[in-house]
């Protein structure tokens, strides 16, 4: 079997070898494609300065800055690294961050947008020309002239619709094949029926041809589709940029030498070096080194945990004090970080039950239109026994009722609302997120990293003696540990000077020690200084043999957290705090922000179950969270928000991403979402009013192509203007 398979491959060795060799040669020297994010560029001078700095490098083939996306894309020789390029731009005086080029797939979305724009342009061109010809027909062209104009219109309309209408035809076919009806079915039917009856009428020198209506309909509907696509493309590219900012790299130790590789290239059994401040790229076991780990993104605990040889670590944890070497036990999709995806998938199946307003309108509308048009056809056929009149009237009914305004009603409003929220720093990722946000009556907040920044703040500065603080400052200055840095900052801000401590050494995983006036002083973990561990986050100072002194910490509040909670409470929403952190920490924060309901020490599954239980009680839950332990709850909630600092998995699971550091836009976003939904309902009502006025005319056979064109344009314009009123 295998030989039979191999035979054709080797039958012509040269044929397969040549392209293979070419491919190999191409792969041997791939040009480096580097992308940088440049958040601070804003002017013509910035562009030329950055481009000049980059092009001056000998390895750079070409560098181009895109001011709209605030990005630079660089084509360079293979040996050029992104780090070099970043340094060049920083030296030119601009902030730069490396973007993972693999994550940026702007070209794919761009192609879809370009295709839509092309179809829109063709439809626009054709509809303008056909309308021009129609105006002369409406104003009284007769006999041969009218026929000539109709034929020219047909010659323009047929190819234009064949090209521009493809998205509608494709969607309608997909829906029909699965035995369903969507908005595209009546659209396609109306366009096709209008074109066919108009052709028939024209060939019989008839008076009424609907070519103008058919092509104008295509144009307006494509405009709606294009708006919709653009809104989503902007959101998608901003979300991609957030992901691309985290370049997945790891330092692998091989035969004692360090090499930097992509996380995707790591294998089970590899030794990986994680420096202080670095995030674990894989699941593993600590092979050497001691340190402390910050697990807040995974569990919500703010208290750093001790890490020593033999202990298991999970991807996503942050190493705090000492360098650690870990042996990988699970990589890529096997890591606990990715296994969480299963939980998310289960939770998400609940949400997909939401039907958007547009779909609900289509479900009512599509069968109604078809029945009405069929009845009109039957009625006229039975009354006159004239097939031509009957089909003409049926086509007129379909065109008049065609969802021109309905097709624009939702995208025009969502485009306006998303643009407004984007300027306030909120990224709407999902197209129905706004509608769902408008229904929210319960808001669940995560604590660590969402309401708080995750950086500790010293709380008992005033209660500590002066000499102790000066000693602690001397020891904490020497450490990069977050708690030590919090002490340093608080003590310096209060105007203390460091005491003269000699022989300061940091013991990774435990703390810092030194010698002061002949006595050993230690600042560190409770167990290391012989103190009783406390419930809240604390570190201890031990001077000689004296009893250890406790330094206690709370998390600093994220800016806007108080405003957001206050605004939501004012809007009459139920606010709940759910955290994986300890009870006293959660209780204290709830009291500080005035949140009545809270839940502490919640496991990820608890959070998701609690959110699901709330949903069961009929509440529409908005979940705001950032950690891995929130991911399932984010997916289970009716709608979810995560800050830009959240883990990638959490951002993917949520519908809205907060781009700034500030939480306060959440309250305003709920109001914007409500007014957007109100506008959508208004738009549906406006479209219905036009239909109610025009349909009787069409059924009575009084509708001329002029009335059809007027009704369509006026309703589309009213709906778009109404969307722009959104504040």
């Amino acid at each position, binding site marked *: 079997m295998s030989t039979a398979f191999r035979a054709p491959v080797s039958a012509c060795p040269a044929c397969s070898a040549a392209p293979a060799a070419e491919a190999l040669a191409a792969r041997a020297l791939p040009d480096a494609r580097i992308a940088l994010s440049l958040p601070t560029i804003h002017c013509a001078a910035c*562009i030329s300065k950055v481009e000049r700095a980059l092009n001056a490098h000998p390895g750079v083939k070409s560098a181009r800055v895109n001011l709209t996306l605030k990005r630079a894309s660089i084509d360079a020789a293979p040996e050029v690294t992104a780090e070099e390029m970043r340094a060049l731009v920083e030296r030119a005086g601009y902030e730069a961050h490396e973007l993972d080029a693999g994550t940026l797939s702007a070209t794919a979305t761009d192609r879809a947008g370009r295709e839509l724009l092309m179809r829109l342009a063709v439809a626009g061109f054709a509809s303008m020309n056909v309308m021009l010809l129609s105006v002369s027909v409406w104003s009284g062209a007769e006999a041969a002239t009218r026929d000539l104009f109709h034929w020219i219109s047909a010659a323009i309309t047929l190819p234009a619709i064949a090209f521009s209408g493809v998205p509608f035809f494709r969607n309608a076919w997909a829906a029909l094949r699965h035995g369903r009806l969507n908005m595209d079915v009546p659209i396609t039917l109306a366009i096709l029926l209008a074109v066919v009856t108009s052709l028939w009428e024209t060939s019989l020198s008839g008076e009424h041809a609907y070519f103008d209506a058919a092509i104008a309909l295509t144009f307006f509907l494509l405009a709606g589709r294009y708006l919709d696509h653009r809104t989503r493309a902007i959101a998608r590219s901003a979300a991609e940029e957030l992901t691309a900012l985290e370049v997945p790299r790891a330092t692998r130790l091989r035969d004692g030498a360090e090499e930097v590789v992509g996380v995707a290239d790591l294998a089970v059994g590899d030794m990986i070096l994680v420096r202080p401040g670095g995030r674990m790229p894989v699941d593993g076991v600590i092979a050497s080194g001691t340190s402390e780990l910050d697990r807040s993104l995974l569990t919500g605990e703010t208290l750093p945990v001790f890490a020593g040889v033999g202990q298991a670590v999970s991807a996503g944890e942050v190493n705090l004090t000492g360098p650690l070497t870990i042996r990988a036990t699970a990589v890529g999709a096997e890591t606990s970080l990715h296994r969480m995806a299963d939980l998310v998938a289960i939770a998400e199946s609940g949400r997909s039950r939401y039907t958007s307003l547009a779909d609900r309108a289509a479900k009512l509308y599509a069968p109604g239109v078809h029945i009405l048009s069929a009845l009109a056809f039957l009625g006229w056929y039975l009354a006159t026994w004239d097939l031509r009149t009957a089909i003409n009237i049926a086509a007129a009914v379909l065109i008049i009722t065609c969802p021109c305004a309905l097709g624009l009603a939702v995208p025009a409003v969502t485009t306006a609302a998303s643009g407004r929220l984007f300027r306030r720093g909120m990224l709407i990722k999902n197209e129905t997120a706004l509608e769902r946000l408008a229904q929210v009556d319960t808001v669940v907040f995560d604590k660590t990293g969402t309401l708080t920044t995750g950086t500790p703040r010293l709380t008992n500065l005033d209660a500590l003696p002066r000499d102790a603080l000066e000693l602690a400052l001397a020891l904490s200055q020497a450490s990069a540990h977050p708690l030590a840095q919090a002490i340093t900052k608080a003590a310096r801000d209060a105007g203390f000077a460091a005491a003269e401590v000699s022989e300061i050494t940091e013991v990774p995983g435990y703390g810092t020690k030194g010698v002061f006036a002949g006595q050993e002083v230690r600042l560190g973990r409770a167990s290391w200084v012989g103190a009783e561990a406390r419930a809240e986050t604390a570190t201890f100072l031990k001077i000689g043999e004296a009893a250890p002194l406790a330094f206690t910490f709370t998390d600093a509040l994220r800016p806007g957290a108080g405003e957001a909670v206050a605004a939501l409470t004012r809007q009459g929403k139920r606010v709940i705090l759910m955290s994986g952190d300890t009870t006293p920490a959660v209780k204290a924060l709830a009291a500080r922000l005035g949140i009545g309901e809270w839940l502490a020490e919640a496991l990820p599954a608890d959070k998701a179950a609690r959110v699901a239980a709330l949903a069961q009680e009929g509440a529409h839950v908005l979940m705001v969270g950032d950690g891995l332990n929130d991911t399932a709850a984010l997916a289970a909630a009716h709608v979810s928000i995560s800050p830009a600092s959240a883990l990638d998995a959490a951002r993917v699971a949520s519908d809205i991403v907060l781009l700034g550091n500030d939480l306060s836009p959440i309250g305003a976003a709920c109001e914007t979402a409500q007014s957007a939904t109100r506008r959508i309902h208004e738009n549906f009502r406006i479209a219905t009013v036009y239909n109610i006025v025009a349909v009787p005319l069409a059924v009575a056979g009084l509708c001329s192509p002029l009335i059809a064109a007027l009704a369509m344009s006026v309703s589309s314009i009213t709906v778009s203007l109404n969307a722009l009123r959104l504040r």
Partner: protein
Amino acid sequence: MNVLAYLIPISLILGGLGLVFFIYTVRSNQYDDPEGDARRILSDDWDDRPRP
């Protein structure tokens, strides 16, 4: 009315030219960076000779 025999083709050709030019601009990525292109005209980097 014979004038129509000229005017209609002329109007169609002119309109068609506009469409072709628009498609050309879309295909050659001229809408990728509208903000940057608006500013680039102000820079005097390649004023004396074209960019190589």
